[in-house]
């Protein structure tokens, strides 16, 4: 069912890495959709496949990894079927991306101006002069002081926060329809984090850009997101709008995550909850639920059979046998 409102639809995406032990599937059957202007957050711990999902969508995976199946439909076009030239026309233009590491994401031997103008000249077909002016304009928008001078600087002269602002300016310079932000503030100072998030949100609202925000910070999710996708061991385990998710999480993993946020209003001697255990290694060989070994509600069924992502409420999907039982066994499979 293709909904015309969908700007982006990821359908049964599966990505794996070649290793000495064979192919390791790190993104397994991930599906979601985004409307234009919407902010979708993907939450999960390290190794849950969030970043690989984003890189697969942009087709920026490194050597040794490959997309094994699924579709990434952007305005109805399957990005995975485009040739290299068509993909280059979309990257940085209609879909752009910001990365986790601002310190290493800019080329050390090229000036900020050069790196800014490059994509503007390619995508918007502007002359060098026009591109320079637009780049200065963008640097102003991201709140960098003395933008003209910064254009002539090399990245080493800027701090991490400033570099991330440059990255945002670069990503937003062609007014993309989708901005993928892969943990954009993880490497930054806490005080700078909030500023960067706010800036991203404002710029995207102004240009109607949808944000795919990848993070493990639930505080950021609550602040920014419209909808949330919780990933665990390469799979989506729960999807809901942000209010529902925080008020009524269905999956025991999501519940655990929410309980493990430290709260300012809790008692001084209250112990911070945590989810026991760790993400299983080589999880693609697990037959049952991948959260089985850490789940407080685990049953025989969970061990034997993998739950599907099923409807557990209005626009609320959960991959859990227990949640299904409580919700009265709604067996409708999401996105099928």
């Amino acid at each position, binding site marked *: 069912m293709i909904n015309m409102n969908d700007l982006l639809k990821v359908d049964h995406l599966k990505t794996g890495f070649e290793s000495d032990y064979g192919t390791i599937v790190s993104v397994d059957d991930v599906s979601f959709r985004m409307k234009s202007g919407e902010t979708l957050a993907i939450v999960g711990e390290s190794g849950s496949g969030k970043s690989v999902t984003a890189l697969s969508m*942009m087709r*920026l995976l490194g050597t040794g990894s490959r997309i094994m199946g699924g579709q990434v439909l952007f305005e109805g076009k399957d990005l995975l079927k485009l040739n*290299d*030239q068509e993909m*280059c*026309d*979309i*990257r*940085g*233009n209609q879909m*752009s*991306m910001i*990365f986790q*590491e601002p310190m*290493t*994401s*800019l*080329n*050390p*031997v*090229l000036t900020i101006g050069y790196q800014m103008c*490059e*994509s503007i000249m*390619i*995508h918007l077909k502007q002359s060098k002069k026009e591109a320079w002016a637009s780049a200065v304009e963008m640097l102003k928008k991201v709140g960098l002081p003395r933008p003209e001078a910064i254009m002539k600087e*090399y990245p*080493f002269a800027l701090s991490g926060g400033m570099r991330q602002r440059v*990255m945002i300016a*670069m*990503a937003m310079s062609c007014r993309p329809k989708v901005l993928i932000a892969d943990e954009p503030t993880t490497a930054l100072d806490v005080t700078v984090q909030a500023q960067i998030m706010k800036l991203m949100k404002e710029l995207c609202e102004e240009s109607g850009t949808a944000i795919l925000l990848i993070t493990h910070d639930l505080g950021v999710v609550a602040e920014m997101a419209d909808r949330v996708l919780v990933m665990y061991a390469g799979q989506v385990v729960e999807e809901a709008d942000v209010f529902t998710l925080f008020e009524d999480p269905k999956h025991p993993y999501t519940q655990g995550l929410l309980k493990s946020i430290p709260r300012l209003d809790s008692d001084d001697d209250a112990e911070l909850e945590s989810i026991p255990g760790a993400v299983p290694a080589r999880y693609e060989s697990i037959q049952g639920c991948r959260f089985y070994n850490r789940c407080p509600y685990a049953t025989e069924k969970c061990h034997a059979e993998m739950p599907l992502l099923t409807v557990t409420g209005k626009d609320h999907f959960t991959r859990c046998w227990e949640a299904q039982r409580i919700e009265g066994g709604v067996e409708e499979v999401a996105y099928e």
Partner: protein
Amino acid sequence: MLKYVIRRLLIAIPVLLGVTIINFIIMKMAPGNPVDMLISPQIPAEALEAKRIELGLNAPAYVQFWNWFTHLLQGDLGYSMVTYEPVGKMIMSRMGPTLLLMGVSLIIGVAIAIPLGILSARRQYSKLDYAAVTGSFLGISIPNFFLGLGLIYVFSIWLKILPSSGMVTLGGNGGFVDILLHMIMPVIVLTANVAGRNIRYVRSSMLEVLEQDYLRTARAKGLKETLVINRHAVRNALIPIVTVLGMEIPILFGGAVVIEQIFSWPGIGQLTMSSIMSRDYSTIMGLNLMAAVIVIGANLLTDIVYALVDPRIKYNK
């Protein structure tokens, strides 16, 4: 930057002095002297003694060094003890052929190494990569004299298409084509060496750069792969190569000694060899000083070029 260069040049003075003193000591410790090398049954002992006094070899060693050094300060490298030509003039006349040989080999070697190293890194573990790495290994490990003699056997003795020695045909009137034909084999040997060494450097430097985050950023901006490589990767990969190329100049001067001997190329290397064999003290000292100047100069040049290609490096002092 200018201040930095001046400071480096000033530091070079004590270094050069130290190098010449050490050279002098080692040279004096070697058995024999220019006069001993002339010994033959026909020459009477008195004549040899007269010769020693004439060349100043009977004076204490430090006096000999002091004489040489004071002349050097006046820009005079002295006279050869064997040919009686001024050492400065001898070195200058041999410099041209050596620079020709080395310059051409360096340019061709680098012109092969950089593109091949880059290509090899981009297609790591491909057939081309294996071929390039193997070729580079052969280039490094085959000794110059062996490759030189092999080439002479094939092209001069067997196929008879290339001259085996010299820079021009004896009795001929030289000319561009003649010199070119004489150059082919020594250049092949030196180029094999230069390319062999540098393919590996370029390849490993490029492999490192290909892993960098900023290349992913460049791709995410929608740049075509050729632009990503040529604009964003290659410049970064070549920064460490600058250092390696700087070291290449002294290495080539060393290599010239062997190669010029094999191909009788009338350059610095041959002069070095013959002056050592005849214990021509003044010429040896002159050549050593030249070698030290080249090493120091190449290092300084490397540092200057480094600052030009890498914006992160600035010399303030």
